[in-house]
């Protein structure tokens, strides 16, 4: 459906020099505690470049905490995160963005007072460089930069089929479209790793199909690696290349969708065990 995307769009995404299929991010023995509450206990897994990696688990399993650790919002007490070969423990979220990690949120976190266009443009704030003095003059370099980035943003708007709501303040949009704008904002950051926290929560079947299509297109056409949290098992099993399953902050399974589906620990976690 989106086979006609222009060549520039395909070349978007961080050029990070990592071959497809090689390890892009590795989480090693990460533990995260809030006081006495253990959110994550000793979890290790990896994300390979170019794959769609799903993180699933019952409510409260620590999935969102895991994403928050990956993009630097939380600093784990133990363990390390290696992104593109660089090992780290703590960092600020805006550093993670600069390294090429973007994310969306479980509950939509858009800038409600701004238009769709401005929201997506805001995603490119870190890529724009002109300083205050040029901004004051507007005409000249600042405007040239603005137009250059507007062109990239319009490609994303085109891609997500949201041309008609370009000027609408996002606070007035229906939920499904807001989710789509949020995906657009994350794409605007040109991430090499895109973290999606329940991109299909609260959507109807048709919206889910649309969103699945966008996720696959982003993955295939832009080569963006995706880590995905989702509760709809049909979607997870169809979209993802590999699945990691968490329960009570621990990793209970890791593998292809088929392996995970047959794993007894996973079945127990989701369906419960007879007492």
């Amino acid at each position: 459906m989106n086979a006609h995307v222009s060549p520039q769009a395909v070349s978007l995404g961080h050029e990070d020099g990592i071959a497809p299929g090689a390890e892009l991010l590795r989480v090693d023995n990460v533990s995260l505690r809030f006081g006495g509450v253990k959110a994550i206990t000793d979890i290790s897994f990896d994300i390979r470049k170019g794959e769609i990696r799903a993180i699933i688990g019952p409510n409260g399993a620590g999935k969102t905490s895991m994403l928050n650790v990956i993009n630097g919002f939380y600093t784990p007490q133990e363990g390390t995160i290696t992104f593109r070969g660089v090992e780290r423990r703590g960092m600020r979220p805006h550093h993670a963005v600069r390294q090429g990690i973007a994310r969306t949120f479980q509950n939509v976190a858009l800038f409600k007072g701004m238009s769709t266009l401005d929201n997506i443009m805001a995603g490119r704030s870190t890529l724009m460089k002109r300083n205050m003095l040029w901004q004051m003059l507007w005409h000249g370099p600042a405007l040239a930069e603005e137009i250059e980035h507007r062109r990239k943003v319009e490609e994303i708007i085109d891609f997500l089929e949201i041309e008609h709501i370009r000027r609408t303040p996002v606070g007035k949009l229906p939920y499904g479209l807001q989710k789509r704008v949020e995906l657009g904002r994350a794409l605007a950051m040109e991430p090499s790793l895109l973290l999606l926290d329940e991109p299909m929560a609260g959507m109807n079947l048709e919206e889910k199909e649309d969103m699945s299509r966008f996720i696959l297109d982003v993955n295939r056409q832009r080569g963006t690696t995706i880590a995905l949290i989702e509760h709809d098992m049909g979607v997870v099993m169809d979209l993802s290349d590999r699945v990691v399953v968490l329960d009570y902050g621990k990793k209970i399974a890791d593998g292809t969708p088929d392996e995970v589906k047959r794993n007894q620990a996973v079945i127990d976690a989701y369906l419960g065990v007879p007492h």
Partner: protein
Amino acid sequence: MLYRIAGQYKTSYAADHALFPVRQDAYLLGFILVMAFVVFPMTASEFAFRALLIPVLIYSLAALGLNILTGYAGQLSLGTGAFMGVGAYACYKIVTIFPELNLVVAIALSGFFSAAVGVAFGLPSLRIKGFYLAIATLAAQFFLVWLFQKWSWLYNHSSSAAIQVPNIDMFGITVAGPTARAITQYYFVLCVVCAVTIFAINITRGRIGRIWKSVRDMDIAAELVGINLMKAKLTAFFVSSYIVGVAGALFVFLWRGAAEANLFEIPLSFRVLFIAIIGGLGSIMGNYLGAILIVALPVVLSTVPAALGVPIASATAEHLNIMIVGALIITFLILEPHGLAQLWATIREKFILWPFPH
């Protein structure tokens, strides 16, 4: 009909990013500028300059500064009056230490002092938000006014504890001081206000404006799209306090002629805040509409009855002012919480669609 946009096609992103996507807006602004630069100066009396035109412009500028901080970056501040004071006292010191300096340069420099003070008092914004931040800026308000009173070096140890604007010439024309003519001062203020407004519009519609608005709308999400919150907030405090400081320097040098510390007390902060809120937070034009309402209306209310031959005592007029302005503020906040700018936007929208209902 007046606002028909049929036939105005945009063929490039540059055209879409223009200041006036609708041509009629540009005509309207041109008309207002002609009024401000040609018609008002030719017709206005000395009283109109001193009581209406100059204060409206200066208060608009102060509100513009506050609006950048509160309306765009979402950081509530109650210290505007004190930051205006910093600008005024800094300008006074610069002018008395370097009497040869051009007044425009002196005013532009004094803005940097208030900007620095603003950034210092903006540091708490990194940890606290909303009403708590407002209280922190209130500390600036009390501390700075106290400083203006106690630090006699600021007013050159004068026995009256006030700053008195000396006569200042620019290119042979007296622009400030007791002998300056009102029309000269009006043009001076008008040019400064126009220049600052253009810069403010350019900053707020570009990258930095978007960063500020992101921080205002949802600071956590802003951080996660890669915005450095500390830098964004402090830049907002810097730009805002700079403009407020320039407004403060104009306030004393081009309008009041003299000032004591108590001029910059909290009623001034509230006045500027009212202008920004009634004009419309997050809007540039709103500041002008708000200033016209808050500053000009009392003057009109006190002069119109006399002109119509209904003499009322000045005390009565003053009380009427308070009642009418108060009622207007409440009415506006209930009917149009986003201020006069939003009211105008709605009217304009209707004009564009007219005669169709939608």
